[in-house]
């Protein structure tokens, strides 16, 4: 117990330790809460329990080997991490990616966005006491993971996006599977909305909770759905298009209330926009065409060529033994991950291993606004706020 001076006079406050093993922190986040009765006076997030030193490990790997590490940063959106790292290295190398590979990338990261939002919606609903939504969301997510498995052989740690393109051609019959998914999904999103959007308990727990002004959100470097719920249409796909996003027609969803409920609305509508983008990408992806750029010494040659051409075999050997050396310089690539602006900074000193790889993780930076959001609110609202920031501790701690 500590004595503090508040507006109402001298009171005694209590310091409560929430986490690191608390089910609603979605990982290992610890928050030191200073409480006056049930009201939060101050909050101090404490993290690092999941720090694995990924950025340091990257410096000991060749550029291609780093991709498997990026999967493990934000484990709900591994394809997004693959993409941002590859974009940064491709920028460093000055590579042009074939259109077909770009569209495949777009389709995959948009599927990833839906699956990530589904996990968010499900777990947040369970935090707020709605068990059935959790089960429905995970049922649909399973369908998306099956699509990933079909494309890359992996459900979660896909490493599907590679420097210069994507790892594999879309598998036979992919269109039929996606078509089935596209037919099913809009109705399922309607179901979630029927269960939640007008639900009195849901509204009671979320509306007016965790307000942060748009000005404060920008000052605290917030991005993603949390910033868009505050009325700012900041979306990398629109403002700084990458991977041919400028060719796609979609809306940047914004809300103005900037509370937990607005963040919920933004994410649900974003799922519908992602479906729109996937639909367009499906029609843009041709049945035939390159999935990787032609860059000898950087992009592995085709298996067939290795059996007939000596150079191809040499390049293959060199890429997987010593790697390739980009010119000295720096590159910073950003994408719109499900959580916000995901950035990757790569610095090269001209050797086959990166001098520095840094990830600008949206979870880490958005979490910074938590004390501001929950000051003066009730203890139970802390859980709603952590939930709607949508943190992934793997990404916070890296």
């Amino acid at each position, binding site marked *: 117990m500590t004595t503090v001076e508040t507006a109402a006079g001298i009171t005694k406050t209590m310091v409560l330790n929430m986490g690191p093993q608390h089910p609603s922190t979605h990982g290992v986040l610890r928050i030191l809460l200073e409480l006056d009765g049930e009201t939060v006076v101050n909050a101090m997030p404490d993290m690092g329990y999941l720090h694995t030193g990924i*950025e340091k*490990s990257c410096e000991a790997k060749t550029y291609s080997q780093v991709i498997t590490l990026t999967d493990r940063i934000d484990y709900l959106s591994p394809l997004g991490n693959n993409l941002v790292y590859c974009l940064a290295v491709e920028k460093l190398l000055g590579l042009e990616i074939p259109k077909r590979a770009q569209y495949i990338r777009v389709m995959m990261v948009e599927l990833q966005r839906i699956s990530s939002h589904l996990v968010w919606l499900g777990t947040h609903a369970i935090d707020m006491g709605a068990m059935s939504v959790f089960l429905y969301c995970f049922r649909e997510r399973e369908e998306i993971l099956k699509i990933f498995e079909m494309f890359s052989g992996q459900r979660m740690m896909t490493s599907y996006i590679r420097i210069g393109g994507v790892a594999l051609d879309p598998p036979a019959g992919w269109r039929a599977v996606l078509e089935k998914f596209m037919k099913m999904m809009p109705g399922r999103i309607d179901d979630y909305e029927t269960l939640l959007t007008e639900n009195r308990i849901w509204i009671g727990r979320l509306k007016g909770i965790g307000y942060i002004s748009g000005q404060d959100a920008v000052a605290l470097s917030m991005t993603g759905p949390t910033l868009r719920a505050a009325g700012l249409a*900041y979306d990398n796909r629109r403002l700084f298009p990458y991977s041919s996003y400028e060719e796609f027609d979609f809306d940047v969803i914004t809300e103005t209330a900037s509370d937990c409920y607005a963040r919920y609305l933004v994410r649900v509508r974003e799922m519908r926009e992602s479906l729109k983008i996937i639909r367009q990408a499906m029609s843009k992806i041709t049945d035939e065409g390159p999935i990787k750029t032609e860059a000898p010494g950087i992009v592995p040659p085709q298996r067939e060529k290795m059996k007939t051409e000596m150079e191809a075999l040499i390049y293959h050997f060199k890429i997987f033994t010593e790697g390739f050396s980009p010119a000295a310089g*720096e590159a910073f690539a950003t994408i719109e991950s499900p959580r916000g602006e995901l950035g990757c900074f790569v610095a090269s000193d001209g050797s086959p291993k990166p001098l520095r790889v840094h990830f600008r993780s949206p979870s880490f930076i958005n*979490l*910074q606004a938590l004390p501001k959001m929950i000051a003066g609110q009730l203890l139970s609202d802390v859980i709603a706020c952590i939930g709607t920031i949508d943190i992934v501790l793997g990404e916070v701690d890296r």
Partner: protein
Amino acid sequence: MTDSTKKDANVVAAHLREWNPKAVAGVIEFRGETTIVVPRELLLATAERCLLDSSLQFNLLTDATCVDRYPIEPRFELQYHLVSISRRQRLRLRTSVPGNHAVVDSLIPVWPGANWLEREIFDLFGVSFTGHPDLRRILLPDNWEGYPLRRDYSTEGPR
């Protein structure tokens, strides 16, 4: 690089030069990205200018990180990535910090979001920030010895 980005880069650099010729120690154009090299003692003032100048308006500090160039001196390079949301432009500010006196002004007065980013750099590189209200380790335990992201911090064997 397109002509328009080249022009934008010149505009930003020219604008800063007009305000204070010493603020721009160099302009680097690489792969369509603009880096403005700022002397360490003018970092805070230049950052403030980038935010407040009506024709710059870099209102979002998206990232701050550090590169260790060991054994080259000055070994630390701080990299700040800025975005002007209204003008749809990105900019990188870079400043060099020597290893024997790794101290630089905190940018929290300009962008409050710099708080945790600077704590992370302090935690992993050991660069200190003057004027930071809460400079503690953020990812590693408080009693950790050394700064893991320095190039001379080995990943294996005894330290």
